[in-house]
């Protein structure tokens, strides 16, 4: 089945608009990448250190009451979030002073005494000391760097150096864009999100490699086209595949988003946005970079 016939869209001709958009996304991401290690972001407990407790109550809890209770218990800077559907309450306290174990015990006590006739079970607790958070941040940075280096090496070996550089630029762009979007929307940056970013780096690269493969193949045929025309033709030739694949992956991710549960909601969201950005960048970022470089 073919929904549309052969396309002849002038993708590289629109590269200046694309560069403008990508530039903004990348700058946003860079700002986030600078501010996040400085702690100026909604860092997850795993990175910031602190306590995160999820309680499941018998009856729904009014979040204002819970907040008052926490304040009177001496936990001022806590963040509360409720999951109304199953009367759950998520309490987070970042970078607390003192022993994290004592703090989580204290918080649990506050609720045991504060809501004596609304019993709860502890769904999960996470206590992270301040030093380990710093280290996890460093590890995450290393992981991203190593995987980008691995990708650069592989693509440069399989294609040409130019393609490797273009692929890494596009991949960087995607990682930064999603990071930036998450930063601006105030979503929590945690280990799972970093995992999602690395995964999307892999996905976005797959997409880029498919386009590059076609460009290389067409380059070998030595047609009389200009490079821009050849790149355009190559993108158009694989466009169908790009769209079909992205659609299937988005379908699955939509299922994860809708039914996967609260734990991996943001993880799936990062991948979902990432697949869209990754598809866009293989067409509008990676290929034009090759063009710009080769034209020189």
């Amino acid at each position, binding site marked *: 089945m073919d929904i549309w016939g052969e396309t002849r869209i002038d993708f590289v001709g629109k590269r200046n608009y694309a560069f403008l958009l990508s530039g903004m996304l990348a700058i946003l991401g860079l700002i986030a990448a600078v501010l996040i290690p400085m702690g100026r972001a909604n860092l997850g407990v795993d990175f910031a250190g602190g306590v995160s407790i999820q309680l499941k109550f018998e009856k729904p809890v009014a979040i204002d009451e819970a907040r008052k209770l926490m304040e009177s218990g001496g936990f001022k800077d806590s963040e509360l979030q409720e999951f109304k559907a199953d009367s759950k309450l998520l309490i987070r306290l970042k970078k607390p002073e003192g022993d994290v174990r004592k703090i989580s015990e204290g918080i649990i006590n506050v609720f045991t005494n504060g809501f004596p006739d609304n019993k709860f079970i502890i769904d999960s607790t996470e*206590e992270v*000391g301040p030093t380990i958070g710093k280290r996890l941040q460093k590890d995450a940075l290393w992981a991203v760097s190593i995987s980008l280096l691995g990708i650069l090496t592989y693509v440069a070996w399989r294609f040409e150096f130019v393609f490797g550089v273009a692929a890494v630029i596009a991949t960087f762009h995607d990682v930064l864009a999603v990071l930036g979007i998450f930063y601006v929307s105030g979503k929590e940056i945690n280990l799972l999100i970093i995992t999602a970013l690395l995964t999307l780096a892999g996905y976005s690269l797959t997409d880029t490699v498919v386009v590059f493969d076609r460009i290389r193949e067409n380059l070998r045929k030595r047609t009389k086209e200009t490079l821009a025309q050849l790149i355009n033709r190559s993108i158009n030739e694989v466009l169908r595949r790009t769209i*079909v694949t992205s659609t299937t992956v988005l379908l699955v991710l939509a299922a994860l988003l809708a*039914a996967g549960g609260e734990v991996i909601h943001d993880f799936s969201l990062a991948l979902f946005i990432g697949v869209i950005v990754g598809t866009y960048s293989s067409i509008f970022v990676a290929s034009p970079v090759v063009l710009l470089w080769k034209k020189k």
Partner: protein
Amino acid sequence: MSKSIPIRLTLISFFFVLAMVLFLPSTPISKDLPSFWRNNVPKINLGLDLQGGMHLVLQVDTEKAVANHTQRLASSISSLLIEKKAAITSVKASGVSDISIAYTGTDTKDIEKLMDSNYQIFKKTRGAGSEIIYTLIDGEIERIKEWSVSQALETIRNRIDKFGVAEPHIQRQGINEIIVQLPGLKDTERAIALIGKTAVLEFKLVDETGDVKKAAEENITPEGDELLYQRGTDKETGIVKQTPYLLKKQTLITGDSLTDARVAIDSQFNEPYVSITFDSEGARQFEKITAESVGKRLAIILDGNVYSAPNIQERIGGGRAMITGRFTHEEASDLAIVLRAGALPAPVNIIQNVTVGPSLGQDSIEAGVKACIIGGILVLLFMMFYYKFAGVIADFAVVLNISMLLGAMAWFNATLTLPGIAGIILTIGMGVDSNVLIFERIKEELRLGKTPRSAVDAGYDRAWWTVIDSHVTTLITAAVLFQFGSGPIKGFAVSLSLGILINLFTALVGTKVIFDMMHQRRRVERVSI
């Protein structure tokens, strides 16, 4: 080409059957399977996020281990120098790895000679006034640190074995960290208390002449004494009470001389207590101590807390003693466990603790499986709708892929986590990609006017390297994730990379054989794609 169809079909069926044989024992229908099957096949482990449990990262205080060791060395150096009649007044440990020897004469040659021949692990760093400072050499400090971590690992493993948790996972991480994973654990507080106890057991005499009240209130302890407390919780009121004790600093006997510790019940008060047994040397010492101190009180101290300080009625032979202290049965049995497993060489600090309740785990499994089914069905339908019969072939590849992935996970005893389920779902989406690449190629060839058969062959040939390239790049990131990730993230990397490897096989071999079979049977006029 077509001759190999039976071989390829056999290979595919073999892998599929193998996958099922491996995977079925990990499913809920496991209990209906014959026992030889169920018991002899490795199973997929459920991660802590799916079954609940506790993940702890402990940091061994290696500095403290070195300090403790230096302290012990100081006292043995002291006895050596006294024995050899060196002119010294005291040997003290100071700082982490220094000992200072205070001497009386003017000549330190004797002391230096003795130190050089007996304690080569020390080097003289400075001498000032009437003191010489010796410092542990770096190699020795490293060795003690290394030993303290491996010893702590061993001790914690022992304690958890005796506590009885199914499939605990205890391993070292980095220089001085230990990871403890206790799946399915319910009483997390108790486990933490058990693991975190340093369990240094000491026996010291109570200073009967000293003024405890004065010591506790004004913080003045007589020379050679120390002030420790007995903490007790009143079972009715829940109020914590602290009783001060003035004790002689000298440790008479330590937990190192224990051979056994077990819970017993006091028949008179029906209260549990811990009965301990000393080794022969310990028994001899204990008999001597009790003989010399009849009528005095002997304090039993664990990690700096006084447990009890019974009056010595008579000389105690046979190497047995009891620790009482109004325990609950659980407290007594945990105390017995830590005493049996031995003391940690240094305190451990919990630097990360992730606990997932069993009900959240259950919720997560249900959500994950539901998302998996919905996502899978959506993809299968989409492929059938878009690629018609070829889509059905791709769907066959997806089903093959997932079953082989689950089989492989069981084979490797891999751990399935919630992100791991996400990895499986993502594998479905990305696995379809190879088929899409191939199908689009076939379509292009058909448009060029090739016969169905040569279009299919050309499609596979031309897409081959693209498929490989796209898979390898994802594999690179998966490998990095595996290397750096912990717990749930590692689980994600495992299912993603296994899925990708298997997908190479199912996409390039699994689907091709069906096309080949079709073309072998009859002349195909057109491909439904």
